[in-house]
């Protein structure tokens, strides 16, 4: 408007015709290309990886987290000792029993409360149920990043059976809020035990043979995941890896065996380790732990004692602090709980295994192919809720 050129009948659209240089786009001219692997990405979940690639080679990876920060540690301070479980369990909803157990044991340590034996056994059953549920999703999503969605669908069918059992027990399928300081919240009825046995039967008789036949010795899967993201034993300890990722590097670290809690001391199970330390080894560790967990549930159901399932937990807990580690599905979960003598926790610090694995990831992603980024990411078996908390 008002331009002499346009008044003369010519139209120039300066904005539209301007050629955009490659530098603006990060394309063509620049040698390194920064890809944003997330937040809105099919495989990333609510986090972002800045991936710098040189052609097909990954040069550097920088995680950017905080998209699901819920301030769980701070929220716990506004709850009573028992109410706090609803915040603790949301560290990762997939396996919520492990975190609730850890918090409850820490609170009981400060208060000096002794839990009945039956509660210990029920906690064990629930924790292993949670571990199975979590490992099923872990298996499914590991192959899911390679473009096959069958394992996830099969895993979800097996998971439904366990969720049915949780629903019978607590009325909720996912966020169960069922383990509290002083025991467990509900009576383990016969129907719950029955449902749990059904679920374990389904897992052992249907899921494990079917899945093992197709997706365990799969040659293409081996081609993709063997020798990818290798971490040696020493390096794994240095990086502070946790859970299946640590055990896949040959470190037999399992809180259930090392510092038994709940009823794990009285049950017979094996700590799964692999020597290779690559993505495939991590996958196999998850797979074999799944089988072990089913056995633990069977033993715990057989040995379930009679008696009370809950004792009284004091409203006010004397001042003190406790540090408790539990072997959660994704690794060793640490709880540092402090009491100032009030009706609720004064401070809770959660040490999250996924967070530890996340900061070890850039080390593993040096000089790999772009296609290996999702494989390594999924093999580390991280939960986004757990990373941010």
């Amino acid at each position, binding site marked *: 408007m008002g331009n002499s050129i346009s008044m003369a009948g010519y139209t120039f659209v300066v904005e539209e015709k301007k050629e*955009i240089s490659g530098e603006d*786009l*990060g*394309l063509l001219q620049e040698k390194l*290309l920064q*890809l944003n692997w997330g937040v809105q*990405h*099919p*495989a990333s979940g609510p986090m972002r990886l800045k991936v710098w690639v040189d052609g*097909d080679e990954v040069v550097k990876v920088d995680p950017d987290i905080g998209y699901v920060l819920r301030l769980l540690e701070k929220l716990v301070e506004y709850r009573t000792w028992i109410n706090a479980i609803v915040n603790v369990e949301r560290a990762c909803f997939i396996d919520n029993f492990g975190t609730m157990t850890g918090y409850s044991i820490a609170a009981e340590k400060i208060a000096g409360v002794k839990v009945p034996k039956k509660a210990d056994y029920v906690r064990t059953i629930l924790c292993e149920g949670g571990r199975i549920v979590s490992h099923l999703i872990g298996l499914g999503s590991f*192959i*899911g*990043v*390679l*473009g*096959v*969605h*069958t394992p996830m*669908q*099969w895993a979800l*069918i097996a998971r439904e059976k366990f969720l049915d059992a949780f629903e019978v027990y607590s009325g909720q399928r996912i966020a169960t809020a069922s383990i509290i300081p002083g025991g467990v919240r509900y009576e383990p009825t016969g129907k719950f035990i029955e449902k749990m046995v059904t679920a374990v039967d389904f897992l052992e008789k249907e899921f494990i043979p079917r899945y093992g036949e*197709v*997706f365990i010795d*799969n040659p*293409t*899967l081996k*081609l*993709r995941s063997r020798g990818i993201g290798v971490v040696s034993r020493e390096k794994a300890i240095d990086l502070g890896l946790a859970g299946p990722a640590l055990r896949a590097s040959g470190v037999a670290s399992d809180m259930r065996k090392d510092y038994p809690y709940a009823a794990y001391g009285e049950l017979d199970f094996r700590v799964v380790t692999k020597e290779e330390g690559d993505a495939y080894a991590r996958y196999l560790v998850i797979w074999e732990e799944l089988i072990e967990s089913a056995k633990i549930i069977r033993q715990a159901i057989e040995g379930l004692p009679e008696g009370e399932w809950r004792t009284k937990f004091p409203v006010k807990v004397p001042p003190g602090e406790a540090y408790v580690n539990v072997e959660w599905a994704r690794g060793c979960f640490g709880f540092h709980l402090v009491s100032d003598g009030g009706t609720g926790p004064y401070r809770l610090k959660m040490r999250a295994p996924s967070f530890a694995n996340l900061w070890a990831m850039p080390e593993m992603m040096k000089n790999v*192919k*772009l*296609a*290996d*980024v*999702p494989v390594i990411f999924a093999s580390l078996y991280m939960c986004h809720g757990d990373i941010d908390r």
Partner: protein
Amino acid sequence: MEAWIKAIFFPGFVFLLVVFLMIFYLERKILADVHLRTGPYYVGKWGLLQTTADVFKLLQKEFIIQRRANKILFSLIPFVAFLMVAMLIAFIPFSEHSYIVSTSFDLLVVLALVTGMPPVFFYAGWASKSKYSFIGGLRVVNQMISGEIPLWLSALAAAVFYGTLNHLQIVQESSFLGFLILLPAFLIFVTSTLIVTDRPPFDIPEAEQEIVYGFLTEFGGFNYAILVLSKLVELFALYSVAVVLFLGGFKGPILPGILWFFIKVAGLYLFTFVVRASTPRIRMDHLLRFCWKVLTPVALLNLAFIILVKMFIS
């Protein structure tokens, strides 16, 4: 029937759309069966109209062109791609009388058109001016060029064996002995078809978990539907060529020829879907190594073998 009626209805444009919808439906249903799910169920009898509904949903979507994109190229590419693959169908005899054209260079034209696809898909990625699309475009060129050489060599093996490039003639001369002799060529052809049309496990150019959707990332609505349609039609055309070259086309006892043709194509599709449901995606460098160090030499050896057989037969 007049040729133009054939080109519009059967086996032309309308037929292509119906085939596209049915194959898409079949894929979802079979995948669902492997997944132990039900799959499409509510829209139409047995969910038969689900894919139609999906396509109509795409048609009514907004036509979005990215600000940086090369607008003309971006809007043109889907139609160019569709035109190129739709031409493939013209040369395929679905039965003794249902074909649009029959020349003495059928196979040559089909292979030439398939070879022309990589630039189209590369421009689709390049014109989007987006990182994921660009990487997808590079990957698709890389992959299709390495897949096309074994494709050509194995298809030419059949042409050498039957001594003609005309599809109808090939079908008429086919026999069970011919099938056995051409079996290696058939396997190479099907494998390289999967590579060329980037179907799983070779869906590297559109690896969802790495580069979102490859060169299709920025496309939406009608453009997207047309591009996906052209990829599916390309696969359908290549499978039809495989049936014509190696499986005896429309030949078969009792049932009419056209049914036999589709039974054979459906068998190949079933194989594709089961492979998709059970095989993880392989990596680009693995694929290139496989194509250039295994598939191409084997295809060359196979061609030499066919020439040897031909020498003794004639």
